[in-house]
């Protein structure tokens, strides 16, 4: 069964049990990669649900519980993955949270919490896996940014700052690893049909759709396939790039 083009590859997908992350996990396991989903406690059950939906590739799915906002936790999780699977070929930094409020009302804690997960989390995970990728002279790192990282968004100063911060992180790590067989890229989705977007007020969703030239939300699978493409062995000349998937919302 496991004969896909990513056969033998070991991937970590943070937040890989729900939303866009679950679609990424699905796409990578579909093509034969072993995927370790990193998530919080509640994601353990979601991972089992996801496993049940994977036709024949469920055995490729693994789970590590932990919060990417803490470096020590990231290190410990990566060590466990290395102990169990021997290497890490692919890292998808997808985990993200929102705590929406206008700047006037946003507390320091709300600012900090979003930056910790959405921006420092990817830095911690990259730092934790990088030695292994450098030793193997191979790596594919994909950071999930957002159209909001390009445009900003009313009530999302923290989220927009984290997501545009990811673009700077992506390009810098791409430069630092360019001669080591490692590529580092960002995928920037538009508004996508996930729980996170469903939690937005209907008026805000309508507004987002009306600002999207394609006049609809994206599907998680439409984002996942771009991530999957960048994780391919043959995508070695693509690094430091930002691939937008947004129905034309930001050009």
């Amino acid at each position, binding site marked *: 069964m496991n004969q896909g083009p990513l056969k033998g590859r070991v991937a970590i997908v943070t937040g890989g049990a729900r939303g866009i992350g679950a679609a990424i996990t699905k796409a990578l396991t579909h093509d034969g990669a072993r995927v370790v989903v990193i998530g919080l406690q509640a994601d353990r059950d979601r991972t089992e649900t996801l496993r049940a939906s994977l036709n024949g590739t469920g055995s490729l799915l693994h789970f590590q519980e932990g919060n990417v906002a803490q470096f020590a936790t990231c290190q410990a999780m990566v060590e466990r993955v290395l102990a169990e699977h021997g290497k890490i070929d692919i890292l998808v930094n997808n985990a993200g949270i929102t705590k929406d409020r206008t700047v006037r009302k946003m507390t320091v804690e709300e600012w900090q919490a979003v930056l910790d997960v959405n921006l420092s989390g990817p830095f911690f995970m990259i730092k934790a896996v990088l030695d292994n990728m450098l030793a193997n002279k191979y790596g594919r790192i994909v950071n999930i940014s957002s159209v909001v990282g390009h445009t900003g968004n009313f009530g999302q100063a923290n989220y927009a700052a984290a997501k545009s911060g990811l673009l700077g992180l992506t390009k810098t790590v791409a430069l630092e690893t360019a001669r080591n067989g490692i590529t580092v890229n960002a995928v920037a989705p538009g508004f996508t049909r996930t729980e996170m977007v469903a939690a937005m007020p209907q008026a805000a969703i309508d507004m987002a759709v009306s600002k999207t*030239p394609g006049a609809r939300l994206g599907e998680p699978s439409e984002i996942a396939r771009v991530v999957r493409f960048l994780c391919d062995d*043959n995508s070695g*000349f*693509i690094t430091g790039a930002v691939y937008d998937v947004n*129905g034309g919302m930001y050009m």
Partner: protein
Amino acid sequence: MFKDRVAIVTGGTRGIGAAITTALTQAGAHVAAGYSKGKDSAEALAAKVREQGGSMSVHQGRIDDFNDCQRVVDEVLAQFGRVDFLVNNAGITADKTLRRMTSDDWRGVIDVNLSGAFNMTKAVLEHMIERGSGRVINISSVIGETGNVGQANYAASKAGLFGFTKSLALEMAQKGITANVVAPGFIGTEMVEAIPKAALDKVIEKIPQRRLGRPAEVARVVEFLLEDESAYITGAVYTVNGGLDM
């Protein structure tokens, strides 16, 4: 994957264009490859593609002439019935610093690289709108993002493709037609190999990965964007440059 699909690839018989033609024919599409000069090399590629079981036709034309573009598009429609994909890949260089660049050098490059994309798109657009589906890919260049000494004309034409593509994407967003740019870095083609060795070494020194790309590495991005499942990607610029533009 692209069974029964018909693609037009301008400049599709050489360099990156030939790699695009090869990739698309291997994925099952018929490719109508446009060329201006080089009938022999065009026929040679077509023979090779057919040997490998692919379907390809070659069409001579002048991309800087709208009427000739319309003639070629009509010819393709008459022969193959439909056009699903348009890849505007044809490009030329006429390098000279601005001080020495003549207005003919300027216009020659703009007419082919930028107006050529407009001419071809215009010639095929009504057909795509009627069918309610289509994919237009414009091949720009990292030079369109960064500029380059001695390439004011080329850089302007390639940067112009960004504005053209995005406007087209907006106009077509609700008609089932996507328009995107693929922007390669320095790729090992005849065009790049024509750069003097010392200058080419300097270019490679600036590429973070310290190597030229391969035409196939660009072609696969084009192929990806042409897939049905890429419908939500429009107005985007997908770079393939070994990290050159950061």
